[in-house]
């Protein structure tokens, strides 16, 4: 039952809802403590390899590129002072990105105007039928509901939809590959219910 092996993910996962992203970042750094504020030597290498993925994962949660970049900064600051082995960094970074982004949603301190600007553009410029079915309000609701899901469900869902394989999601969350499907399914079912609940009450 080796569930959480390194400080930062535990700190992130245990952080209470509403805690701000910057606090999490700092906390991760302190708990993981490479010591004396020292920054790990492979930070640049890992950054160049994984930054786009971290931004993409956070953007999936937030729907805003600017906010996703803010989140990625927090995550790499925490990573820079952690002792996570480089080989496990991609999973760690992705999980941390989702947690930090979800904390941002739950903190209610979003840069709301940015998301709406992007969303409005998306509505106009994407002719895709499936997307047109979902209104901007629907998407906002899904994101709010995502913030309310049990954390593992939300993280597994976002990682899966970010293109990680079941094995990668399982490794990142230290769960069995067999339970990834169940966890993702539960999350999707909950989000769909959230959408249909509003559709039927409109």
């Amino acid at each position, binding site marked *: 039952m080796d569930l959480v092996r390194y400080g930062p993910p535990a700190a992130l996962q245990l952080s209470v809802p509403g805690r701000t992203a910057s606090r999490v970042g700092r906390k991760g750094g302190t708990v993981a403590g490479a010591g004396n504020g020292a920054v790990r030597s492979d930070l640049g290498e890992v950054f160049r390899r994984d930054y786009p993925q971290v931004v993409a994962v956070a953007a999936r949660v937030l729907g805003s590129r600017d906010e996703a970049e803010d989140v990625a900064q927090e995550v790499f600051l925490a990573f820079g002072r952690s002792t996570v082995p480089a080989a496990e960094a991609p999973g760690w970074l992705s999980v941390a990105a989702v947690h930090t982004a979800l904390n941002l949603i739950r903190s209610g301190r979003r840069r709301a105007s940015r998301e709406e600007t992007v969303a409005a553009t998306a509505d106009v410029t994407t002719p895709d039928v499936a997307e047109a079915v979902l209104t901007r309000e629907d998407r906002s609701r899904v994101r709010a509901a995502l913030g309310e899901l049990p954390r593992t469900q939300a993280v597994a869902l976002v990682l899966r939809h970010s293109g990680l394989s079941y094995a990668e999601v399982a490794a990142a969350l230290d769960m069995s590959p067999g339970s990834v499907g*169940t966890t993702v*399914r539960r999350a999707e079912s909950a989000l769909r219910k959230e959408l249909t609940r509003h559709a039927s009450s409109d």
Partner: protein
Amino acid sequence: MRHPTEGTLRRLLDEPAGVPDPDRAHVADCPQCLAALAATRRDAELVGTALAAEGSTALAAAGSTDVDAGWRRLTAALPAAAPAARPERVRPSRSRLFRRPAAAVLAFGVVLAGAGTAAANDWLQVFRTEEVAPLSLTTSDLVALPDLSAYGDVELTGDPDVHEVPDAATAAEESGLDVPEVADLPRGVAGEPTISVGGQLSATFTYSADRAAQAAAAAGETLPPPPPGLDGSSVRLVAGPGVAQVWSSESGLPALVVGRAVAPSAYSSGVPFETVRDHLLSLPGLPEDVAAQLRGFTADGSTLPIPVPADLATSSTAEVDGAEATVLTGRDGAMAAVVWVSDGVVTAVAGSLDPDELLSVARDLD
């Protein structure tokens, strides 16, 4: 053969190669599973669209990610952030000191509940616990746990081998339990149930004072002295065998589930289980809700160790045949369950029914 779980159906959409051949073959020929698979696909696509639309558009609109700009920003922030982190050092590390023992207890609580949870997980196939969400611990609780091996060894043993049987008589013979018989099916539930039987499952936690002390020392904390004899003693939790009857609805979800199992109980070697439990309760920083949960464990299996995630379900109590039953109602109203323990046997009646209807079924069981 039993129906593959929801999780298996979900994976079938993304990684069919990751799903065992028998499950794939079953789904291809099973109208119920095909219907469930279609519903799974619809939900997955809907959520995928909701999450991808803005994100991917936002990214596409702004061009590819600018790694160099991100790196410049990070390196600019690093020297400033390092000293800023220092004043924070005291408080977070303090909270960590307290977190470790608390988390150890939480982990232990889960291992104990593990008889409940693990059994519930093995009951997954039987109860399809994914649908009876109130009965399972949320996985987020599990992920937040620390490395339990720092405090001792954990071993899950037993192969519950849950499988379908043709009739109640076979179920009774294999499980050794009285298979509950539903006198009158509630409105909307019809047909014959699918009956499944599962064997016994057990979990053993062996406490190691050395390792617990090392873990505490690593966190700068001193463990309270463990009671004599605790070091090296084991607690074994056993659950099962069990039997479940499932009536399906057209949607593929269980309309009614009636399950019965030998209740989870704790056995200890060396020191009494209560001593182990009380020592864990004495560790500093233990959250009150976890403590309350731990206090609920008894050595005789008379208490039902089912943590109820407050965000998923509400619980209340009712009386069934002289025993106090826990009534769980999913917050989304989709599922409810009535669970009670009598003479070391736990019985659950669950389904997509009103709690009153379930209570009525529970009270009329033969």
